[in-house]
């Protein structure tokens, strides 16, 4: 079983890397681009277990280590 965790900065938290990416895209002529926010994806291999149990486990991982909830949001996706 696999889990995928998407982590992004909360709205209102400055994202200088996203800003730099936006500037670079404008430099390349992609003028349609507005604000860019950079996040990260973490893929986890998990031992097989019930889906709700897996969700609970990954939730705890996010709270304890994977995300800093002062500045970040996360969403969890379970893949078979």
């Amino acid at each position, binding site marked *: 079983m696999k889990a995928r965790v998407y982590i992004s900065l909360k709205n209102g*938290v*400055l994202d*200088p*890397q996203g800003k*730099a990416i936006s500037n670079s895209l404008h430099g390349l002529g992609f003028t349609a681009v507005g604000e860019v926010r950079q996040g990260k994806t973490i893929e986890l291999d998990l031992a097989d277990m019930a889906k709700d149990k897996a969700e609970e486990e990954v939730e705890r991982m996010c709270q*304890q*280590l*994977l995300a*800093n909830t*002062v*500045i970040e949001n996360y969403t969890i996706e379970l893949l078979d």
Partner: protein
Amino acid sequence: MKAAVIVFPGSNCDRDLKVALAQSMGRDPDMVWHGDSELPDTDLIAIPGGFSYGDYLRCGAMAANSPIMREVVRKAEAGTPVVAICNGFQIAMEAGILPGALLRNANQKFVCHDVDLLVTAENERFVGGYEQSQVVRFAVAHHDGNFYADAETLKELEGEGQVAFKYATASGEVTAEANPNGSMNNIAGIYNKAGNVLGLMPHPERMISEMLTGTDGKTFFDHLVHSIV
């Protein structure tokens, strides 16, 4: 007096901190490895700067979960003085003993130079060696020192005298030009609510002799040691 410096894989200011503390204490602090689960008997815990765990995931995130940090958090909550510098500040926030977070510098640059700091709040233990509203000079060296807190936390920090240092001009004016990293309200260092934990991005341990171009850091450690003894 006894002090303990916590050493993580990737710490690189641990020896500077040892030298600074030894100079002020007249004896060496204990160097405590992150994998230990017990702290020696100590009157002061110092969390040094560096790049613990290569800054993987988030600065300080891995270190905050290392075995020794459970003990550091327990002692901090029980009132033991803790000084957390640079990466140590990031670790202390990730461990939840200080509020807020430290983001990537707003200008995306690693900043490495001396900074002038306004001593903002009174805290006899940590800044009793300075005059009120004195400007002191330490050095910054970081990529992720951009202080962030939500509006409510920021208001509380300012209102409760928990802002320890602000980036300022040499004459003590808190201006945007004096802010090296985009920190909210120019905040360079904060105290926890109880006032026994200080976290700051600038390095006092780099200003402990004239040879290092300044002694404001020596004053800091001398007073800290004196106030604990």
